[in-house]
């Protein structure tokens, strides 16, 4: 698994982008389980896009239009159909072109998907996997949000946020096999190699073995071992933290960087163990600060490991404003590598 964290290609490795890895993961699960199907807008139209980010290209030819279902622009219908089909023994993969549109089907997710099993006294299950691309990319306030934190607050839902191809393939397969509703949040700029520059120049592909594997929901990854500060981050921000860590290593600030991968359930044990070692914690995410998942993690540490802390817990996140479109404004909102480096430096000094 540590290969997932390599940032330089080793010859002989099979390095894929996240888009390729997810496509492969979905295809494999559709092969092995006839109950799995895809449903969403523009997912399978011949001559179309293969989903908003091309992840599904080639799948309709393989699996046909019974299992790759194109819908009207009707998010409630998509989510509702997924919830209903899941209860009847299917394994739907509903697609949201942009996570920003989840707000159009919140009722189906929060009041139906998350509660049906409980209301039935445990007689039903709702296995579905909602794919939700997040992340700002100069598209403005309604096409760049990172809404994952809303969903960790919904008992009955599981939330994951893979950041590299190895994890992405493994966890989408785990999510499809899971008996509960899982929301998978993926960052637009990490799908291919376009985002490389934004990611501090780090390679965004990862080795993906050909053998079948799953990456378990609820397990974090230590992406960099260190002793000075524990850093927990996801998606593009994770790469910025890794780049910042390399930069600071030269100054003798040795960061331990953790990719939580799952946001609900959350692998607090891995974070606790690291904080016991470092005594310092910085949490970084592109989601806005107030009420973000970083708040929950900080609260748990302040409750379970308060006496391990040698310094205040620091959160670096997008400021509490909608997303502006101008690149210069956008970068003034999101957690940049510069801001992260700066805060880490300060934190090391406390």
């Amino acid at each position, binding site marked *: 698994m540590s290969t997932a964290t390599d940032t330089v290609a080793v010859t002989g490795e099979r390095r894929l982008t996240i888009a390729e890895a997810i496509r492969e993961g979905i295809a494999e699960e559709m092969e092995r389980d006839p109950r799995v199907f895809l449903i969403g807008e523009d997912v399978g139209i011949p001559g179309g896009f293969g989903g908003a980010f091309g992840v599904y290209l080639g799948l309709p030819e393989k699996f046909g239009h019974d299992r790759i279902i194109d819908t009207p622009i009707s998010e409630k219908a998509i989510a509702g159909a997924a*919830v209903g089909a899941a209860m009847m023994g299917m394994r739907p993969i509903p697609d949201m072109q942009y996570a920003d549109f989840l707000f159009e089907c919140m009722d189906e997710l929060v009041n139906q998907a998350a509660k049906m099993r409980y209301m039935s*006294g445990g007689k*039903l299950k709702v296995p579905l996997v909602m794919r939700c691309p997040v992340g700002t990319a100069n598209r403005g306030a309604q096409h760049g949000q990172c809404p994952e934190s809303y969903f960790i607050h919904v*008992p009955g839902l599981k939330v994951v946020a893979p950041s590299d191809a190895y994890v992405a393939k493994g966890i989408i397969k785990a999510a499809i096999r899971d008996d509960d509703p899982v929301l998978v949040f993926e960052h637009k700029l990490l799908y291919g190699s376009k985002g490389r520059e934004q990611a501090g120049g780090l390679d965004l592909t990862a080795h993906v073995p050909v053998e079948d594997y799953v990456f378990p929901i609820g397990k974090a990854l230590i992406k960099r071992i260190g002793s000075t500060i524990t850093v927990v981050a996801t998606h593009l921000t994770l790469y910025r933290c890794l780049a910042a860590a390399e930069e600071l290593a030269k100054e003798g600030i040795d960061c331990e960087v953790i990719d939580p991968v799952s946001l609900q359930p959350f692998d607090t044990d891995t974070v606790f163990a690291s904080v016991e070692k470092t005594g310092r914690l910085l949490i970084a995410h592109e989601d806005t600060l107030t009420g973000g998942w970083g708040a929950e993690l900080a609260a748990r540490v302040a409750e379970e490991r308060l006496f391990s802390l040698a310094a205040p817990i620091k959160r670096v996140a997008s400021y509490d404003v909608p997303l502006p479109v101008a690149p210069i404004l956008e970068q003034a909102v999101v957690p940049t590598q510069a801001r992260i480096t700066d805060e880490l430096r300060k934190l090391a000094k406390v």
Partner: protein
Amino acid sequence: MIPIDISGLTRDDAMHLYQEMLRIRRFEDRVYQLFLKGELPGTLHQYQGQEAVAVGACQALHSDPKNMDWITSTHRPHGHALAKGVSMRGAMAELYGKATGCCGGKGGSMHLGDPDVGMIPAIAIVAGGISVVSGLGLAFKLQKSGQVALCFFGEGASNEGAFHEGVNFAAVQKLPIVYVCENNMYGASTPFHKTSLVANVADRAAVYGIPSVIVDGMDVVAVRTAVAEARERAAAGGGPTLIEAKTYRFAGHSRGDARGYRTREEEAEWVDKDPIERMALAITSTGLADEAALAAVRVAVDTELEDSVEFSRNSPDPDPSDALTDAYATPITIGASS
């Protein structure tokens, strides 16, 4: 009062329909007393007056466990549950919040249901069932199982976006779904005509390219016939049908509704169409059975009813620890804090 037309029905059939409707009526009346006595927690949305819709519709569905039809229901599900086969004991115990309830005390009055008989927990979000039923139909279509999903909803629900998205999607996908709109003229206190410039919900089906029919919701046979036809079309791949049953709720919207938004005259007109009385009249006037036979049915129903009350009273409360199970099929450690 005008009896309904039961020509062609056998005695057993007619008596069964009568009994099924009576089970709901007596259940609801008894539940109301129990509620006033403080035996039942929460609130109630009762079904008296609409029995012909639930019974007529569910009687047209397949209940054979191997390819069972399913229903979705609303905040007003007692009648749907009993008609679909949820046991009276299971339904009553659920209202009591007992461990023996059909949802183990986790669902309650607004979420009655039982997957074992083809009813998912009722959805109390207005039109929520219209969103979800698409998935039932889609699953049956993909599984080529021949099953059909029936969705109960009120006329008020037809103003929700979920109605538009759900019915349109089902129509385009030709899903095996029967939509049964119970138009009881009011959504809580609000008359339908204040919320729609078209008089009938059925009129809205045309824009989805699916057939619709308006049926007398106080006539159990008429409802069953309409639903049976729609069910066959759906099962044969003909896609969904929208059935609008004109009906009336005799009780208030929820317990403690003084019904000041409608007139006693209007209520009286509809009570004169009481679906159960009209059925009884049809049975006796056609000589299919006599008063004594009907009385025997009433006794049988009351016996079942009192048994369900006793059963519920004597049932154990759920264990408090049960509250923390069933949120997930694959449990996760619930938040560190207490």
